[in-house]
């Protein structure tokens, strides 16, 4: 049975370093700030990073354990609501950063991946049925990794983080044609690290690229902010810098997604 109460959003990209985790965390925080109940899941098992950004070095159980079938999802959830702005719940399900776990996750076979997809799909029933959560946000590995494709298949909306880098533009276009389209996934684009994002010419150029080359809606252009680089992953902007332009952009993205203006 499909529960329409909540939505699963997968944040994905063709290349690494496009800002997937930055977008995932700040989107989750923006939605929570708007009063939505959010659960952020780290599915980047090759390079777990949410634990460091959210400063949770240990967890009773990890996302790895849930997908392994070793625990139920409630054991792998960490409640961080008190450290986030707004009235919404902010839970996280972290990927185990130990080298042993990273190695273990990279050796899984097709049967395991199929079962993992089943467990990701089951989250919809477990977390949305009771109305406990409004959004599940999957932070994924870049490119065509098993775990990311599982996340894409399970998601209602895929937010693609991309940059102006030529190889990224090329790879993202191919991924849109050969992956998302095959799964008939609703997708939206966030172009990150844009120089001169405020200029009209740049906006028109990006709009045209989204329409002609990518053929998906453009959610936002995110300028290249020095403050983001300086923060070194230590800031959650809706919480720590409520008046920063990046916080405002993330707020707009959250509102667009929340009002389903992603067509």
């Amino acid at each position, binding site marked *: *049975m*499909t529960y329409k109460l909540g939505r699963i959003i997968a944040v994905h990209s063709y290349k690494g370093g496009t800002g997937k985790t930055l977008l995932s965390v700040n989107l989750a925080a923006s939605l929570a700030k708007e009063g939505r109940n959010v659960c952020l899941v780290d599915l980047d098992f090759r390079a777990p990073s949410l634990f460091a950004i959210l400063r949770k070095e240990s967890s009773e159980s990890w996302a790895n354990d849930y997908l392994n079938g070793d625990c139920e999802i409630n054991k792998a959830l960490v409640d961080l609501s008190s450290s986030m702005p707004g009235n919404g719940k902010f839970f996280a399900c972290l990927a185990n950063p130990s080298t042993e776990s990273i190695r273990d996750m990279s050796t899984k*076979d*097709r*049967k395991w*991946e*199929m*079962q993992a*997809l*089943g467990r990701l*799909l089951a989250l919809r029933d477990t977390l949305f049925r009771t109305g406990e959560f409004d959004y599940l946000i999957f932070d994924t590995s870049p490119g065509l990794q*098993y775990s990311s*494709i*599982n996340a894409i*298949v399970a998601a209602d909306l895929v937010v693609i983080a991309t940059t102006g880098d030529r190889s990224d533009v090329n790879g993202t276009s191919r991924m849109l044609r050969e*992956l998302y389209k*095959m*799964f*008939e996934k609703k997708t939206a684009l966030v172009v990150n690290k844009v120089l001169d994002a405020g200029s009209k010419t740049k906006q028109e150029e990006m709009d045209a690229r989204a329409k002609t080359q990518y053929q998906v809606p453009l959610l936002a252009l995110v300028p290249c902010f020095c403050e983001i680089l300086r923060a070194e992953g230590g800031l959650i902007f809706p919480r720590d810098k409520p008046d920063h332009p990046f916080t405002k952009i993330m707020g707009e993205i959250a509102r667009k997604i929340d009002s389903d203006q992603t067509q």
Partner: protein
Amino acid sequence: MNKEESIGRKPLQVLEKIRDNLERLNEKMEVMIEIQKHGQRDVLQPLSDAPMDVMTLLSMPDHLRKTAMTVCRCGRATAEEISEQTSRARAVESAYLNQLVIMGHLKKERNGRKAYFYLDRENIG
């Protein structure tokens, strides 16, 4: 149950049996029609237990992928339930589902007149 009732039920049971057999025959014919329509290449080697992971989904022809993904989301469903979600005819979905069973990606179970299709995630491999 008295003797008269028992005698009265027998033709009914025979008719039900004939109807079930006709339905099964119809399903097999639907699969054969689909195989001819889309070509043998779409029906890979009949496998006993072929895990339906995302890479397998990606390698499927579009018409089968849509059905397979809907079963992935539902877990267990009849052709009727799948057709409601894909907006394709029940007979078409029934053919695709049976094709996926032949390919070893799905399991099929009958419960009375209804045939349920599902992914056997635990026992495949």
